[in-house]
């Protein structure tokens, strides 16, 4: 049992820090640290910088243009990026579709789509959930009917994150209606420029536009856009969801978030004393810090075991639940720390160009908003309730 970083790992950490210092544009990290809105161009700029270094596809094997990093390296990279204020990598093409294509796609599909993910030509979004199929994803109804060398797609997807920026959508579609629902699902790649596709914004509770509904009406999709075998899509989806889950502990976000929270707690005063020294707040801070330190090790343990076993299993559900609860707690404390100054909300102040005087401290403007927006963490990516079902069934065998 050895928890310290090896010499190689320390060297890797230094290399990552050096890269971030040199290549992460100050404008972007300032925006991220201040909780400002990022544009599509901002994300693309950062992806291009990472891709130039060969560090965009951290979960892909080297032969496909990935980094080939192990769990510890990916963990170090995530922590350092968060600490430096790097924009979060948009996961849909790189971390979700990429691994599915690598494992289940045809050679032609790999040769065609993977480079376009890496060089930013194609911005992908995810077509999974539907209004009637959330936790019960397998009950999805979006149909794909084979007609000669095309599928005709009809239906609706929802909660499509950043769909407004996307060129392509990977969709779970129903290709067979009889038998078990899971056995009639296919995985289809759809060009969003095809006629019959409509994207409509859904505003979240904080008034932001990050998710959408996507409607398909008689959309003609070439049959070669099917990934793997017809009616085997559920297997690919499950594979993707477990892949999605390893990043979902959000350890990097929590570490950076906690550091920011402590800084806020030093600067905020209650009865003339820094909030960090108020016994009640200090207790809250200590509790979440203790949980986070344990979570970091749980994260590494699960990833290390997964590396040996060839892929993350149901243990990743633990990471999803605990990781999101800790992140949400840090958001709650940051909001709490601001006292009355958590109340003002000037939406324009989240734009990068805004330079009027803040109301209250300059770090106040985003705290409540982030707290409310991040209530989604325990809902998406497989809700925490579903994750508990997975633990009960697959780990506890109840």
């Amino acid at each position: 049992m050895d928890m310290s970083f090896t010499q190689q790992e320390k060297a890797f950490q230094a290399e990552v820090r050096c890269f971030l210092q040199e290549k992460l544009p100050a404008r972007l990290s300032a925006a991220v640290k201040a909780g400002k809105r990022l544009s599509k161009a901002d994300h693309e700029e950062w992806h291009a910088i990472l891709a130039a270094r060969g560090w965009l596809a951290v979960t892909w094997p080297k032969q496909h243009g990935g980094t080939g990093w192990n769990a510890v390296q990916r963990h170090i990279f995530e922590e350092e990026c968060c600490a430096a204020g790097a924009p979060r990598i948009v996961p849909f093409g790189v971390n979700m579709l990429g691994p599915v294509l690598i494992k289940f796609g045809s050679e032609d599909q790999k040769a065609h789509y993977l480079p376009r993910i890496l060089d930013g030509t194609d911005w992908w979004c995810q077509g999974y959930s539907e209004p009637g199929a959330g936790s019960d994803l397998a009950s999805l109804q979006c149909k794909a009917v084979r007609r000669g060398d095309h599928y005709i797609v009809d239906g609706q997807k929802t909660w499509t994150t950043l769909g407004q920026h996307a060129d392509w959508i990977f969709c779970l579609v129903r290709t067979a209606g009889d038998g078990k629902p899971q056995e009639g699902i296919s995985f289809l790649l759809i060009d969003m420029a095809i006629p019959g596709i409509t994207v409509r914004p859904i505003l979240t509770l904080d008034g932001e536009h990050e998710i959408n509904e996507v409607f398909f009406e008689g959309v003609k999709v070439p049959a070669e856009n099917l990934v793997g075998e017809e009616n085997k899509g559920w297997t690919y989806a499950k594979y993707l969801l477990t892949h999605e889950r390893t990043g979902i502990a959000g350890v990097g976000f929590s570490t950076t978030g906690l550091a920011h929270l402590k800084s806020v707690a030093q600067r905020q005063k209650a009865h003339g004393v820094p909030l960090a020294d108020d016994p009640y707040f200090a207790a809250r801070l200590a509790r979440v810090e203790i949980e986070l330190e344990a979570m970091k090790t749980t994260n590494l343990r699960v990833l290390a075991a997964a590396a040996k076993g060839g892929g993350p299993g149901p243990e990743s559900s633990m990471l999803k639940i605990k990781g999101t609860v800790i992140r949400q707690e840090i958001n709650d404390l940051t909001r709490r720390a601001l006292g009355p100054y958590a109340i003002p909300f000037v939406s324009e102040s989240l734009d990068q160009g805004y330079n009027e005087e803040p109301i209250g401290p300059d770090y106040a403007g985003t705290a409540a908003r982030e707290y409310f927006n991040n209530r989604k963490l325990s809902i998406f990516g497989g809700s925490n309730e579903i994750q508990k079902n997975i633990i009960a069934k697959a780990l506890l065998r109840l």
Partner: protein
Amino acid sequence: MDFTHSDDRRMLADTIARFVRENYAFETRAEIIQGDDRFAREKWADFAELGLIGALFEEADGGFGGGGFDLAVLFEELGKGLVVEPFLATLLAGRAIALAGSDDQKAMLAAVISGETLLAFAHSEPQSRYDLADVALKAERDGDGFILSGDKSVVINGGTADLFVVSARTSGAAGDAAGLSLFLVDAKADGLTRRAFPCIDGGGAAELKFDAVKLPASALLGARDRAYCVIEAVAGLGILALASEALGAMETAKTLTLDYLGARKQFGRPIGAFQALQHRMADMLIEIEQLRSAVINAAGALTSDRLSREKSLSAVKYLCGKIGRLVAEECIQLHGGIGMTWEYALPHYCKRIVMIDHMLGDEDHHLARYIALSKEAAP
């Protein structure tokens, strides 16, 4: 022992509930909060006509209620409807005038109750957090009058008020409860600037800057240096009001969630059939009833001795914060993705519930205060 409300109070509740049902749909409110004022002056006029502003004041001051249970009933109904009109601001500033004002000053309350004059209570400051005694804004003697200099922060409905009740330090050191005074300041006073902004839970507030604002002697409200007990008293009314409002909002959030659990089908059945969710709703019910009881305790204690009163007010505000967070987070979670959308009423209720903890002292502040008060009571 009788836990039913009087006929008058039930009528008051029915009046507001009917108004909200017929004139204050969620979509209406969504539009209201987009406007510059962050509330609807026409709705305020409607409330005035229904006599609801009068419910904030005692009969002697031209109202018809103003007692603990009147406020609890009124604000619970406002919370159920997510009403953003300036009832709280009117309560805080108006009751300060009622408590401390001269006959001339109290005569102004008629225009407040009729909806013509908008009031706001300018007390908290950038550094004060929840400490009622932390007032640094100075009021210096200027002949018979005073000159006010300093800042007030997050003044609820401060952007639209016609008249402010402002706390200022006339003597004593920073943080002293002694040495505070209250003043009536016209919003158009020379040297007073305000910066209005939206609040994240709907409604609006403002930062105020007093730059050598000259006031006549008649602007002093109550006894000089001795305003703290008035401030504490109106803050107490405000705490009861906020806890009641939060309770009402929680009731609506709970109802919306219950309805959703019955309607939303996944895995071939309504998700309310799943035991795990049933248990969580049961927990929520228990906690909301606990808060209701604490509101009753606080409303009843308003006329008790100071320590009993203040302990039950800190108790209800503590519970309001703790239970509010649970209810808000659970209701969103139990709705899944739809609980996160702007178009749906539920998350707006949750935002209001949570942000109430940022006014007049949060969960931790009141837990500490409860402990301190307990020590005072039994040294």
